[in-house]
């Protein structure tokens, strides 16, 4: 049967039979880099269009409908415009940091892609600490944001960056704790182990109510971590013009914009991997017939379907809720999400020890 796994294996075998080891590795690095950049470009175009359409529909508007059929090429046109725009550096900024910051943000999102599993046995790097790697690397992006805010030499940028720092430091905790719930249930940090553990049902259903609470907290926390509304204090338009990327224009701004959407994709991919079984089709216990039918849907469709469903949910949040004030934001984390997720982790541990999960 046709699958991404077969294609990658065929290419790998062909390269190994043609070149020696080092060359193969270099060529595969190149292929992976191209694939990642291609995925980024496609995700940027698709997600921004999706966001604009979803927001329009939720606000009883039409959304982009002029460029191409149904406005399909709107984001392509926007990207072309951003590419040909002048990459301006304001006069009194810290030039080195100012130009470095967008690249740090985008490189962090690229690196986080490494342990993600896009389809059955289709993964860039299967490391045994996959989830830890993702949580560790994704917190580096706040350095890029702080760098952009500081280097811009603009009080709004700096305020936005500081808020972003406070926000990410707080929400990492409950996101991490809800990720830990699944790690406790699975007993492994490796992404492929976590997915294989869900072969007879997703953790969201197998882990009873604590898993659902963990899922809810995870979704709320990652919405905050990606700096999206209702937690978009870092770039609160009405207060801080555009927050940390006020001074950016052209392609450097586009990199920040792209990183935001790719980060949304990544956190949703992690959420679908942990709670919804990644590429694993919907399997229910021992119903062999039902499970067999579900296996006919290709695994990458399952993965992207779940991920895009979660992205839709996060967009749904954005276009429903008003923005929180900074004290409300920190209240929500430290007084509600963190105690609940700590208590929840204990419950999950009890479930895991007593083997109450299915």
């Amino acid at each position, binding site marked *: 049967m046709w699958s991404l796994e077969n294609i990658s294996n065929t290419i790998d075998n062909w390269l190994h039979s043609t070149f020696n080891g080092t060359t193969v590795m270099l060529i595969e690095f190149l292929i992976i880099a191209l694939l990642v950049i291609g995925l980024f470009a496609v995700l940027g175009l698709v997600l921004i269009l999706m966001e604009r359409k979803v927001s329009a529909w*939720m606000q*009883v508007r*039409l959304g982009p409908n002029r460029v191409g059929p149904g406005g399909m090429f709107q984001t392509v046109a926007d990207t072309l415009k951003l590419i040909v725009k002048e990459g301006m550096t304001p006069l009194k900024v810290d030039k080195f940091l100012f130009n470095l910051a967008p690249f740090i943000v985008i490189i962090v999102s690229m690196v986080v892609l490494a342990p993600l599993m896009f389809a059955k046995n289709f993964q860039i790097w299967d490391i045994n600490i996959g989830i830890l790697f993702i949580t560790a690397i994704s917190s580096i992006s706040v350095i890029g944001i702080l760098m952009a805010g500081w280097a811009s030499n603009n009080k709004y940028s700096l305020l936005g960056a500081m808020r972003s720092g406070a926000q990410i430091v707080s929400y990492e905790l409950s996101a991490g704790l809800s990720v830990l719930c699944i790690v406790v249930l699975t007993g492994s940090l490796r992404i492929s182990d976590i997915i294989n553990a869900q072969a007879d049902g997703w953790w969201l259903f197998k882990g009873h109510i604590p898993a659902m609470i963990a899922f809810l907290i995870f979704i709320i926390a990652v919405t905050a971590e990606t700096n999206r509304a209702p937690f978009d204090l870092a770039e609160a338009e009405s207060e801080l013009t555009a927050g940390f990327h006020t001074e950016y224009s052209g392609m450097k701004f586009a990199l920040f914009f792209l990183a935001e959407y790719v980060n949304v994709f990544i956190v949703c991919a992690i959420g679908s991997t942990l709670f919804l079984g990644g590429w694993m089709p919907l399997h229910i216990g021992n119903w062999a017939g039902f499970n067999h039918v579900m296996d006919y849907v290709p695994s990458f469709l399952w993965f992207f379907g779940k991920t895009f469903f979660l992205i839709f949910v996060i967009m749904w949040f954005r276009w429903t809720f008003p923005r929180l004030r900074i004290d409300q934001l920190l209240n929500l984390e430290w007084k*509600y999400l963190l105690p*609940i997720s700590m208590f929840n982790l204990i419950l999950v541990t009890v479930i895991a020890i007593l083997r109450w999960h299915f």
Partner: protein
Amino acid sequence: MAFLKDYIKDVLGALRSSLRGMRLTGYYALHHKKENITQQYPDNRDKLVLPERFRGEVVMLHDEKNEHACTGCTACELACPNGTIKIITKFDITPDGKKKKALDTFVYHLELCTMCNLCIEACPTNAIKMAQTFEHSVFDRNKLTKVLNNPGSKIREGVE
């Protein structure tokens, strides 16, 4: 344990009200065709019907003999809040040898106009009115400065 009860009530209440909000936006997202209130840009020029009081730009009415009703009284110029209209007058010699003030050039700066309609209300002879055009973008700013009276036009007989 009262605080714990309040705490749990808080959390559940927040969840419930959040879900209520999401239900509304979710309903809109699924029924966006039915609920849509956006007016489309008027592409259908042939069938387009604009409201009677639509204000596009100021025009001067001329009849088939190329005559207008403007006496050059500058009431519109005085009524305009932002200096959009500039009236240049001249003196006509009437057949019985008297000098009479008349309109020479009616300069209208579309780029300054806010379509407030005050000039039309100020006009004592109904010489100007609001047109229904709405696509005013040009490549040269000078094209926005218009002369409203046609070349060679003169005031209609009997309009004072």
